[in-house]
C-alpha cells in the first residue's frame, strides 16, 4: 500500500557484502520516499552507503557478493525485487535511469559518442539511422553541447570532463525516465560546469515531470536543488526533513556538525573551520546503537550504544534517529 504521491518507497533496506573477512552490512535499515516530480537529496560522509543504496534500487549490486538482505523497494507500487531479468531490462532507462559517479565507468572508451547514443536509443525504440542521427543531435543540443554533429564522431577521451558528464546525462535521459538517480553528478566538475548541469537537470524536471534522487556531498548543491534531504551516517538514515528545515533547524548532532563544517563565503579568511573530530568507524566495528557517539563529543551511556535508537517524526515531515544524547 504505497501512497500515490510517492514514486519510490524504500523501506528498511538492508544491503550486505560477503567479503573475505566475513559479511559486512553497508546499508542498515534505510527508509525514505521520493515524491513524484520532486528532488530528494542524499548526503553523508564518504563510505556511509549512498552509492550502495542507489545500486540496490537499480539492482546493480556487484554479483554475487552484494545482496539485499532485508526490506523492500517499491516503484510506483511495484516491488523491484520481484522483477525478472527481462522486466528489469525494460525497466532501466525508461522507468529509472542512473548517472554514475564516474562518467568513464558508464562510457565506452573505444566507441564514438554517436555509436553509444544510438545503442541507448535502440534499446527501447526501433529507429532508422536518420531518426537516430536526428534524435542524437537533439539530445546533445539539449545538454548544451556545442557543435553536436562533430561531437558524435568523437571518442570520450576527446571531450573535456564536463562534456563527458553531459553525454552521460544525455544517455540517461534518452527515454525520459520517470526517476533519475544521479550519484555525485557534479563533484568532479568546477563550479561553472556544475551550475550548467544542475540547471539542466532542473529544467528537464520541470519539462518532463521527472523525479530525482540526488546523491552528493556538496551541501551547496543540496540547498539549491532539493526539496527534501536525507542525511545518512554509517549505513543508516539519521535525519530527514524538507530542505529549508534541515538547514534552519538540524536536530541530530551529525547533521549539525556537517552544516557547521562548510566553509562559507562570508566567513573570516584564515579562521579555523568547525570540524567533526575523528572519522567514521570502520564498517566491521559498527555498534547496534548510536553510531555517532564516539565523534559527538557527548558522553553516551552503554544503553545508548547497544540499542538502536527509534526513528521518529519529531515534527511534521521531520524525522530523526532519536538518540537521546545526539538529539538534545
Amino acid at each position: 500500500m504505497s501512497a500515490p504521491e510517492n514514486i519510490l518507497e524504500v523501506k528498511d533496506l538492508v544491503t550486505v557484502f560477503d567479503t573475505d573477512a566475513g559479511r559486512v552490512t553497508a546499508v542498515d535499515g534505510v527508509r525514505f520516499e521520493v515524491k513524484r516530480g520532486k528532488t530528494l537529496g542524499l548526503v553523508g560522509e564518504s563510505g556511509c552507503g549512498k552509492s550502495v543504496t542507489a545500486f540496490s534500487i537499480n539492482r546493480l549490486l556487484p554479483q554475487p557478493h552484494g545482496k539485499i538482505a532485508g526490506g523492500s523497494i517499491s516503484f510506483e507500487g511495484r516491488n523491484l525485487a520481484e522483477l525478472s531479468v527481462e522486466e528489469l531490462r525494460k525497466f532501466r532507462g525508461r522507468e529509472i535511469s542512473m548517472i554514475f559517479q564516474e562518467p568513464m565507468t558508464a562510457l565506452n572508451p573505444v566507441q564514438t559518442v554517436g555509436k553509444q547514443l544510438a545503442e541507448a536509443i535502440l534499446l527501447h525504440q526501433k529507429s532508422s539511422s536518420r531518426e537516430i542521427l536526428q534524435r542524437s543531435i537533439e539530445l546533445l543540443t539539449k545538454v548544451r553541447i556545442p557543435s553536436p554533429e562533430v561531437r558524435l564522431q568523437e571518442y570520450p577521451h576527446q571531450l573535456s570532463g564536463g562534456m563527458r558528464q553531459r553525454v552521460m546525462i544525455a544517455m540517461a535521459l534518452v527515454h525520459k525516465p520517470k526517476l533519475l538517480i544521479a550519484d555525485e553528478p557534479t563533484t568532479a566538475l568546477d563550479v561553472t560546469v556544475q551550475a550548467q548541469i544542475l540547471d539542466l537537470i532542473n529544467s528537464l524536471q520541470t519539462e518532463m515531470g521527472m523525479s530525482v534522487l540526488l546523491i552528493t556531498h556538496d551541501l551547496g548543491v543540496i540547498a539549491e536543488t532539493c526539496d527534501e534531504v536525507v542525511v545518512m551516517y554509517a549505513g543508516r538514515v539519521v535525519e530527514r526533513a524538507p530542505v529549508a528545515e534541515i538547514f534552519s533547524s538540524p536536530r541530530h548532532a551529525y547533521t549539525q556538525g556537517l552544516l557547521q563544517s562548510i566553509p562559507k563565503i562570508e566567513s573570516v579568511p584564515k579562521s579555523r573551520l568547525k570540524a567533526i573530530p575523528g572519522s567514521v568507524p570502520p564498517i566491521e566495528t559498527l555498534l547496534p546503537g548510536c553510531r555517532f557517539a564516539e565523534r559527538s563529543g557527548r558522553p553516551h551511556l552503554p544503553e545508548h550504544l547497544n540499542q538502536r535508537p527509534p526513528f521518529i517524526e519529531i515534527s511534521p515531515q521531520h524525522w530523526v534517529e532519536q538518540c537521546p544524547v545526539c538529539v538534545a
Partner: protein
Amino acid sequence: MSLLNVENLKMHFPVRGGILMRALKTCKAVDGVSISVSQGETLGLVGESGCGKTTLGKAIVRLYQPTDGKLQFEGQDITHSSQRALRPIRRDIQMIFQDPAESLNPRLTVRDILEEPFLVQKQGTTAERRQWVGELLDKVGLASTAADRFPFEFSGGQRQRIGIARAIALKPKLIVCDEPVSALDVSVQSQVLNLMLDLQREMGLSYLFIAHGLSVVKHMSDRVAVMYLGKIVELAPSEELYHNPRHAYTKALLDAIPVPDPSKRRARRLLSGDVPSPIDPPKGCAFGHRMKHPKWEQSVGMELKLEEISPGHWVQKCPCCVD
C-alpha cells in the same frame, strides 16, 4: 621582498601530429603569468578546469622547464637552474598533488614515503629519521602505527594527510597545494584545512593554494588570483575580490557558486560553453565568445594587460567589461 616571484611565465607544450609526430601547433597552457607570494602568505589560484593551474604549479616547483619568463625564489633566479643546482631549493619548495592516490607509491609503506625526502637530502641517521617520521605523523594527526601500513589502507582524507606530512618533512618555505581538498567530503575537508592553517602559523609557511572551490579558496587565502585560459585576469585581496569583483569572468565564477542556504536560492546567470582551447586561443578577449558582450570585438587586436585599479587590486582591463 617576496619569497616567490613569477614574472611573465610561459609554459607551452608542443602538440604533435601527422605520421612524423612533428610539432604542429603549441598548447599555450600558461601564457604570461606574473604573481608573487610573500613569507607566511597564502595566494589562492582559481579558474575553470583546463585553464592551466596545475601546469603553473608544476612550472613553479620546476617539474617543468618554463618556456619563457622568470622564476625567482628568495631573490635567486631559478628559471634555468640545473637539477643539481635545484637540489637545495627543492628542500624549500614542495608540492601537494591533486590526487593523493596517484602521488603516493602504493608499494611503499608510509614510513618509506616519509623517509624518502630525508634520504634524498642525505639528512639524519636511521634512528633520527625514524623519530622524524613519528613526529611528522603526530603533526598531521595520524597515529604512529600508521608508519608501517600502506597508502591504500587509509581513507581519502588520511591519504591527503600523508601527502601533507611528506610535503612538510623538510620544513619548506613554500608549498604549492594543487586541489588539496577537492576530493574530500566537507567534514574531512575542514579537518585538512585546519591542519594547513595550523602548520602555516607554526612554521611560517607560504602557500600557493590551487582549487576550483571558491569558498574554500577564499577561506584559505590572503589574496586570490583568477586564471582564465593561461592568463591571470584578476588579482586582489580575498575580501576585496569577493565583494568587489571587476572582471566579467570573476563575476561569472562567483555567480556560479552554490550557496548552502535554501532561503538564498537564486536564478543563476550561467556561463555557457567550455573554456576555449589553449591550442587555438581566440583573438582578443578570450572570454568574449562566451559572454557574447556586444562590444567584445573591440578587444580583438588589443594587448590586454593587468592594471592596478585600487591598491592591491589588479584586473585585466578590457574595453567593454571593466567600467
